[in-house]
Each structure stands twice: as structure tokens, then as C-alpha cells.
């Protein structure tokens, strides 16, 4: 007879996630009841207030000891809190970018080119649904890296994915492309989450447990059927590798990065990576660590291919958003070496790298929203030539973010790359170190090519101009730029903080 144990939830510990969900629900109510004119401003206020409140309660959670909550399905430990903090900070600067609602369609349901669309544009309607959708995605992202059982992990994955599929289709201009990117993101995302679920099923079959610690115990005990463990790790990894955009599960990312509204791309590219790598680090470090001979060789190969492929294909891109997409694929490869390292310094380095990369990504995409002509954003790189002569500040900021991606000293990217590669080397993966450094060199080539294009080529006279950024976008760019350079020049406080805090509760 199986007895039913009523669950106890520790609401104080779950507060950061619950606050975000509550804010999202208030946002939905505002959509339903508030007059149209009041929506945009009140939604922005509520979204920012929710995120700030959540961050404050996260600080409070951190001051307590590491512990589990909600019947061990969620764990609050140093690493989890750091990842959640990074996600919240990235979400806050992304929301300032999203606040420029002119980048979104006026009425998502209107056919492109129809009278309905024209009327909605004339009436200056705004899709304020963007805010609650973002908050739902943030809640999923907050849950993903702290989930310590398979059910919570799956629900969190879907919670962060579903709103992003919708957000990808809301672009104001080039709407067909935007809808197409939503379709591709959705179909491939659903495909990969089916694999993820099958992996969960096999892991459950292997260990007869759903918690990470139960799987860990089964791996150590070695009692289960190893085929199920192997299938479980493989299928689960497909789902996770898809979310981080590692080769060969990267096919969606260039299309979605290009088609989605740039503000959404910024948020998705930065925050999803933190959440997905957080979850990946946790499950590989906690549950699969002792079975590393089963998965490490395969993951090393994937990391190597991802680094090289991302860096090489980025060279051939003529579209700035696609170039950034391939660069993010290459970065996924670099970050995978933190998972492979499987040691404390790998964990520290990954968390630092994720935060630094996320902030720089939001900043870079914020700049992309500024370069426009009469038809909207100009993403063709050829038309960016001479940008440095017309708008030196914008071009300098973009160059700074690119240098951070390339890992040039005095930017946050250098510290991140250095520490993650040294962690990989410490764990004995010399191949990762060599390939990582070589593909960073390849990647530096196309970043610097863009910088040369902006500063040393003559401007083309085709109506491309840099719009005056709104206050919100200015805030996004300023914060990202300051963080990127501050972490490059004086990273010690954050590194020390991560080193003393980042721990997984076993």
C-alpha cells in the first residue's frame, strides 16, 4: 500500500520564483481590465517592480543556509542563487530594451499587409502582452537551474520555452520572417523537449527515482540497467544541448535570432543560456558525475565541433544578427568545456562566463536595434560600414561588446575565457584547451573585421542611420557596457564572491 504524503512547500524560499509568477498574473489581469492607454506604462512598472522585488527576496534567500524546498524538488544553494541572480539582472536590463514597444507589432493577430494591420498601426496600438510573457519565461528560467527533480526540470523547461516561442513571432517589421522564426523555434523546440521527456523516462526507469540525488545513488550503486542510464543521459542531453544551441542541435538559432524582434533575441540569447547551462551543470555535476566515462567523450566531441563550427560559419555571415547567432553557438561550445571540466573551478568559471556573456549579448543586440533605415532595422553588415564616422559612440560601444565576445583583455570576455579554459585544462582535457584557443582566434577575426568595417570604411549613403536611442535603450546599453568593462578591468570581487559562494548542495 502506497501512502500519500502531503507535500510541504517552503514559501519563503520559493519567493523569488513565486513573486515573478504573481507579477506575470497581475500583468495578465491588466491586459484584461485596464484601459489601453494605461497599459504600457503600468505593465512596465509592474514588470520592473516584480523583478526588483524578486531580486531582493533572492538576496534574503542567499543569506540563509543551502537547503531544499518543496519536497526536495527545488534546491537553494550558492550556485543556484548566483545563477538566479544573473538571470534576474539580465532580465532587468532586457526589460528596458523590451520597453521600446515600437519594435513590436501593433496587433499580433492582424494579417501582415491587411487593412486591420494598417488601422492598428494608425491607432498606435501596443502589444503590452510582451511583459507578462517575459515574466512567465523569467519564472521558468529561475526554476530551471534550481530544479532537483526530473518533473520540476521538465515543467521549468516548458515554462521558459513556451512564452519565448510566442515572443519570437511579434516583430513589427518583416512580420512573415518573424512568424516563420516562431514556427521553426516552436517545432524544433517541441521536438527536442520530446527527447528530453524520453530521457527523463529512461532515467526514471534506471534509478526508480525522480530526484537528482536518487539518480546519483543509483549511478553509484550501479544496480540498474546501464542501457537505460545511457539512453537517459543521451536523450536528456539532446533537450539541453538544443536549448543552449550546441552543434548538431543548433539549426534553429540563426533563423530565430534573425527573425525574432531584436529585443526578444537579446533576452532569449542571454537568459536562456544562463538557465539552460545552469540546469546542465547541476544535473551533470550532481547526478551523472560518477558515470562520466559514459558521457564525457561524446560531450567533448560536441564541444569541439560546436566551437569550431560556430567560429568558422560566423565568418561567412553578412547579417549582423546571424553573425551574433553563430558567435553564440561558438560560445556554447566554450561553455560546454565548463560542464566537461567537472570540478569546482569549472563551475566558478561557467557562472562568471554566463553572466559576463549574457550582459554583453544584451548590450550588443541593443545596439543592433538602433541602426535603421526607413524600413526598420538594418542588419546587413555591408550597410554598417562607416558607422564609426557617423555615430562614434554607438560604434565604440558595439566594438567593445565584440571585443568582449572575442575575449580581448580588459573586457569581461577575456577573464571568462581564461578561467573556463584553465578549468578544462585542470581536468585534463588538453584537446578542449587547444581547440578553444584556436577557435577563439578564428572568432576574433570576424569580430575585428566588423570593427574595421565600422571605423575604417567610408559610409554608404543609402539612408542607413543611427536613431537616437530612447531613455530605456540608453539604460540597457549603459549598464551592459559598464558591467562588461568593469568585469574586465577589476573582476576580482565578483570572482572571489563566486568562488566562495558557488556550491552545489549534494
Amino acid at each position: 500500500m502506497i501512502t500519500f504524503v502531503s507535500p510541504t512547500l517552503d514559501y519563503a524560499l520559493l519567493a523569488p520564483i513565486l513573486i515573478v509568477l504573481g507579477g506575470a498574473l497581475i500583468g495578465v489581469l491588466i491586459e484584461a481590465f485596464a484601459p489601453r492607454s494605461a497599459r504600457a506604462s503600468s505593465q512596465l512598472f509592474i514588470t520592473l517592480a516584480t523583478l526588483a522585488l524578486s531580486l531582493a527576496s533572492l538576496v534574503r534567500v542567499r543569506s540563509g543556509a543551502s537547503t531544499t524546498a518543496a519536497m526536495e524538488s527545488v534546491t537553494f544553494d550558492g550556485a543556484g542563487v548566483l545563477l538566479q541572480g544573473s538571470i534576474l539582472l539580465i532580465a532587468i536590463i532586457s526589460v528596458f530594451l523590451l520597453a521600446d514597444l515600437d519594435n513590436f507589432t501593433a496587433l499580433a493577430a492582424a494579417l501582415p499587409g491587411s487593412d486591420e494591420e494598417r488601422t492598428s498601426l494608425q491607432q498606435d496600438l501596443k502589444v503590452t502582452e510582451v511583459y507578462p510573457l517575459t515574466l512567465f519565461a523569467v519564472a521558468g528560467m529561475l526554476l530551471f537551474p534550481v530544479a532537483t527533480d526530473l518533473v520540476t526540470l521538465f515543467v521549468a523547461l516548458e515554462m521558459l520555452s513556451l512564452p519565448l516561442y510566442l515572443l519570437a513571432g511579434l516583430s513589427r517589421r518583416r512580420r512573415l520572417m518573424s512568424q516563420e522564426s516562431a514556427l521553426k523555434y516552436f517545432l524544433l523546440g517541441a521536438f527536442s523537449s520530446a527527447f528530453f521527456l524520453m530521457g527523463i523516462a529512461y532515467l526514471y526507469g534506471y534509478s526508480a527515482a525522480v530526484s537528482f540525488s536518487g539518480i546519483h545513488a543509483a549511478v553509484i550503486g550501479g544496480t540498474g540497467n546501464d542501457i537505460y542510464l545511457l539512453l537517459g543521459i543521451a536523450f536528456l542531453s539532446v533537450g539541453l544541448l538544443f536549448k543552449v544551441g550546441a552543434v548538431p542541435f543548433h539549426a534553429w538559432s540563426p533563423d530565430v535570432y534573425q527573425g525574432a524582434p531584436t529585443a526578444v533575441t537579446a533576452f532569449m540569447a542571454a537568459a536562456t543560456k544562463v538557465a539552460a547551462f545552469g540546469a546542465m551543470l547541476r544535473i551533470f555535476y550532481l547526478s551523472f558525475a560518477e558515470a562520466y566515462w559514459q558521457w564525457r567523450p561524446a560531450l567533448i566531441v560536441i564541444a569541439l565541433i560546436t566551437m569550431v563550427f560556430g567560429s568558422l560559419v560566423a565568418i561567412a555571415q553578412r547579417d549582423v544578427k546571424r553573425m551574433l547567432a553563430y558567435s553564440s553557438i561558438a560560445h556554447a561550445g566554450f561553455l560546454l568545456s565548463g560542464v566537461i571540466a567537472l570540478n569546482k573551478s569549472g563551475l566558478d568559471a561557467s557562472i562568471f562566463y554566463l553572466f559576463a556573456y549574457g550582459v554583453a549579448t544584451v548590450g550588443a543586440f541593443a545596439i543592433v536595434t538602433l541602426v535603421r533605415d526607413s524600413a526598420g532595422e538594418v542588419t546587413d553588415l555591408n550597410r554598417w560600414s562607416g558607422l564609426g564616422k557617423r555615430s562614434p559612440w554607438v560604434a565604440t560601444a558595439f566594438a567593445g561588446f565584440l571585443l568582449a565576445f572575442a575575449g580581448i583583455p580588459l573586457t569581461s570576455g577575456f577573464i571568462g575565457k581564461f578561467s573556463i579554459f584553465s578549468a578544462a585544462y585542470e581536468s585534463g582535457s588538453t584537446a578542449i584547451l587547444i581547440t578553444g584557443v584556436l577557435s577563439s582566434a578564428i572568432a576574433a577575426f570576424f569580430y575585428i573585421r566588423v570593427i574595421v568595417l565600422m571605423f575604417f570604411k567610408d559610409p554608404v549613403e543609402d539612408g542607413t542611420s543611427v536613431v537616437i536611442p530612447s531613455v530605456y535603450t540608453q539604460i540597457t546599453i549603459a549598464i551592459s557596457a559598464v558591467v562588461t568593462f568593469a568585469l574586465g578591468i577589476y573582476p576580482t570581487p565578483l570572482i572571489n564572491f563566486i568562488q566562495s559562494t558557488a556550491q552545489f548542495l549534494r
Partner: protein
Amino acid sequence: MSLDNYLYLSAILFTIGAVGVVVRRNAIVVFMCVELMLNAANLTLVTFSRINGTLDGQVIAFFTMVVAACEVVVGLAIIVTIYRSRRSASIDDASLLKR
């Protein structure tokens, strides 16, 4: 009958779904194939629940159904929007982003 047979059946269903996603061209059919994969995973979970003698697998199966329902809402919304603007639900026609 051995419980293993259910695992074989679910593996076959999962494979049919996965192959369907790759070869079929209509977005709705692709989506149905994904649903087939999710149901195959559910069958696996329930079978393992029986083999292991714990209820967790059956509980996960319920969660999966709810999540799949949410996915249908979002997915059909996206597919219907695409169909309205293009008069076609073929995923080969949606190729503006290909280079």
C-alpha cells in the same frame, strides 16, 4: 506478458514520431508526430512505474499531459497565424530565413 514489450512498443512509437517530424512537411502533421513522441514517453513512464513499483512515473505522465496541452495552445496559435498569412501550413514554404 512481459512488461518489456511495452517498452519496445513505446520505443517504436517514439521512433515513428521522430521519423515523422523529419520527413513530413505539413506543420500540423509534424506537430502531431511530436505529440506521438510525448505519448510514447508517457507509455515508457507508466511502464517503468509498474516495473519499479513506485507511483512517480504515473504522476509525471499526468504532468506531461498538462504540458502537452499547453504546447498545443501555443503551437496551434503559431501555426494558425502562419497559415492565415501564407495560405499554407507547409514548412517548406516558410523559407524566408534560409540562406
